[in-house]
């Protein structure tokens, strides 16, 4: 018997608010987190704006020893993990031990520590490289810092799945619980904005000058963002035993790879279509059950066209409300789909679809039911979290209001030859 997997806590470090309450309020209000970049000089780069996290002080969340050990990306992740555990009402004694795992997504992890090391080496020579900083670099460390802080002694794993990393981590974390390999998994993703990435996106001509306007006819590209979105996933038995209130259930997820182009989505979108279909089928649902899509919606021409094609192909004539939180947060890269997953929890808990702000001129080529500029109230039993990432990585996750999703489908757990029709991934 496969276990159901519940989200029992969420923690957020973002440009629109720290912690569940502030984040949910900002999503309801459609608050923008975009501001001039402060952490490095953008005056010569041609672009100046991003969704930088400016109200976060690690000292409020981490012990002194932790502050010395971590880089800023891990600091955000660790703070969000603590918030998520507190939100779940889980104390250290309940999560300590080998049945708790930590699975995190990211694109570049401690990119700033690496940049600092590189700066010292390239500008001042090898003798200037600080030995003590070296072991603190590496995306491997994100889950390790968290496991250490909360007493988790099971699997520690990082999934560097670019802009789909949050969905990858949540999906794999749910698998660990479903198959009985863990009772609790602290999961999600974290990312920071670093100068090299910023310059790279400018050079790829992918960055908008002022606003990220997903699905708008005049959209001019993405803006970068940063932050950490962490979730506590629990097995049904573990949550029930301690009387925890499930906030949402993690349904099935779909994965695929375009194998087409390293930065652009496949124009016929076959991979993302397969991933979205698989996520719905693996949740034991049909497209009619989906109430809302939390879009990847980067605001680039290619992405939004491909995503429109995916939605039309999967949902046919049915119009499903869709919205992109990237209009508020910018593109938080590895953390994006984790923060958007928490946006899905927001929708399930409040019945509100977060708005796509800056939506002014509908694009006939993106003829979707975009939740324009203000949050919309609607049915929120089943929501879908879409991501189409760098490297052709596609990942789609389903979240359901507790009690809504059918039990996990045992056909997906090793019955040789029992692959359900149409579920390639």
């Amino acid at each position, binding site marked *: 018997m496969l276990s159901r997997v519940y989200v029992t806590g969420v923690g957020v470090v973002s440009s629109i608010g720290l912690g569940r309450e502030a984040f949910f309020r900002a999503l309801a209000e459609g608050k923008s987190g975009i501001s001039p970049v402060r952490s490095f000089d953008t005056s*010569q*780069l041609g672009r100046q704006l991003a969704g930088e996290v400016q109200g976060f002080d690690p000292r409020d969340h981490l012990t002194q*020893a932790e502050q010395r*050990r971590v880089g800023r990306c891990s600091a955000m992740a660790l703070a969000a993990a603590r918030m998520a555990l507190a939100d779940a009402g889980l104390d250290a004694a309940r999560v300590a031990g080998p049945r708790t795992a930590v699975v995190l997504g*990211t*694109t*570049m992890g401690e990119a700033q520590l690496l*940049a600092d*090391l*590189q*700066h010292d*080496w*390239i*500008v001042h020579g*090898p003798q200037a490289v600080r*030995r003590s900083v*070296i*072991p603190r670099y590496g*995306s*491997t460390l994100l889950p*390790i810092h968290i*496991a*250490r802080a909360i007493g988790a*002694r*099971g699997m*520690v794993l*990082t*999934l*560097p*799945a*670019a802009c789909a990393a949050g969905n990858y981590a949540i999906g*794999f974390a749910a698998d*660990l619980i479903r*198959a009985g390999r863990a009772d609790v998994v602290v999961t999600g993703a974290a990312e920071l904005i670093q*100068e*090299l*990435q910023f*310059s*790279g996106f400018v*050079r*790829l*001509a992918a960055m908008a000058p002022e606003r990220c306007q997903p699905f708008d006819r005049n959209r001019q590209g993405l803006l970068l963002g940063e932050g950490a979105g962490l979730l506590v996933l629990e097995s049904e038995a573990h949550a029930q035993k301690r009387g925890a209130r499930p906030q949402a259930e993690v349904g099935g997820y779909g*994965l*695929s*790879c375009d*194998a087409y*182009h*390293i930065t652009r989505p496949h124009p016929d979108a076959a*991979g993302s279509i397969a991933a979205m279909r698989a996520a719905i089928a693996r949740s034991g649902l049909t497209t009619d059950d989906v109430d809302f899509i939390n879009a990847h919606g980067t605001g680039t021409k290619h992405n939004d066209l491909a995503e429109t094609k995916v939605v039309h192909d999967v949902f046919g004539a049915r119009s499903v409300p869709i919205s992109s939180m990237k209009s508020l947060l910018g593109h938080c890269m590895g953390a994006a789909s984790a923060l958007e997953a928490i946006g899905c929890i927001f929708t399930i808990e409040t019945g509100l679809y977060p708005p796509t702000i800056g939506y002014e001129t509908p694009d006939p080529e993106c003829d979707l039911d975009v939740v324009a500029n203000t949050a919309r109230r609607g049915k929120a039993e089943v929501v879908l979290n879409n991501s189409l990432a*760098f*490297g*052709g*990585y596609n990942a789609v996750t389903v979240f359901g209001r507790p009690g809504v999703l059918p039990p996990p489908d045992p056909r*997906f*757990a*090793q019955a*040789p030859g029992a692959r*359900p029709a149409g579920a*390639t*991934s």
Partner: protein
Amino acid sequence: MTPRAVTGLGIVSAAGVGRAAFFEAMRAGAQPAPVDGQLEVPGFDATRYLGDKGLRSLDRLTKLLVVAARLALHDAGLKKDGAWTAGSAEQVGIVVSNAYGSLEAITELDRVSLLEDARYINPSRFPLTVANSAAGYASIWEELRAVNVSVSDGNCGALDAAACADVLLEQARAEALLVGGAEALSEALVLAFRKLGAVPPPAGGDGALVGEGAALLALERPDAARARGAEVLAEVVGYGTAFEPPEREAALVHASPEALERAIAGALGDAGLAPGGVDVVVSGVSGLRPFDEAELVAIRRVLGEGACVTAPKRALGETLGAGGAMGMAAAIAYLREGARAHVVRGTLPASPRTALVASMGYYGNASAVVMRSV
């Protein structure tokens, strides 16, 4: 885990490229000569395997991985002469471990950015700086559409990749998966190892030879492998992992025998194997003394004094994210190819049937995998 059949091996290592060359080197106990404390893949020429088109925008890490993927697919009989013969692009995926991403590409762009101008960085090289870039390119070059998963857990990552692959196969997300890891030598990596005093001094002594390479095992359900008449090189039958942080608050780097003990015990339990049933341990012993000592303590505590322990990293180098995959490849060499080299403790039985591959992370993390011959 459910037993998984290894139906192919693609390997690019200091001790040889391709299954046959690698096994021959393992049988011969070849000890490639390090240059300046580094063990590179000597004379690696991707054009030999990939042709000479489209390689210019790729870095060394990507080339190593793509070549390993191509070799693995052909070795497994999933492809012949570049075309699918069994399965299809939609049914085959890849799970790749890598520890640090492309330090080569990041350094290249940082140099331009710091010494010239950030506005001059080459946009066609920028994608290489992203951690899952090599895996993304491998899927493009080899048409792997089922799933593409990148894993990072230091030098435990490739063993964790096997556990991820088990879950993905269990859920029918792919019919076959290329599973392993890749790491490339770079100035920055070597500098980091040197700064940390982790490479042996020129006169010899403690330290690991920094290595590189890529190794991918084709994993399938045994019944599926049999049904298509594939040769099965070995089976992966158990996995365990654990984390134990240092007690001292200020410490970060940590060699934990307790973590490896739990990982090994977990892997044995998962495989349904008693400690006495392990014929050969493919350890991660690399020359880094605190880690080697902790690893040997853990192996002794779980498997007893008499366990046969090998250390192929002495010949292959410390290949970090690829290390566990090199270890699994070495395990196959011991289980079916008559390799007897690199034994550092105990005696190798005449016909070993079971192997335990161990990896100790640098932060108190540890993983282990059990393999058996068929």
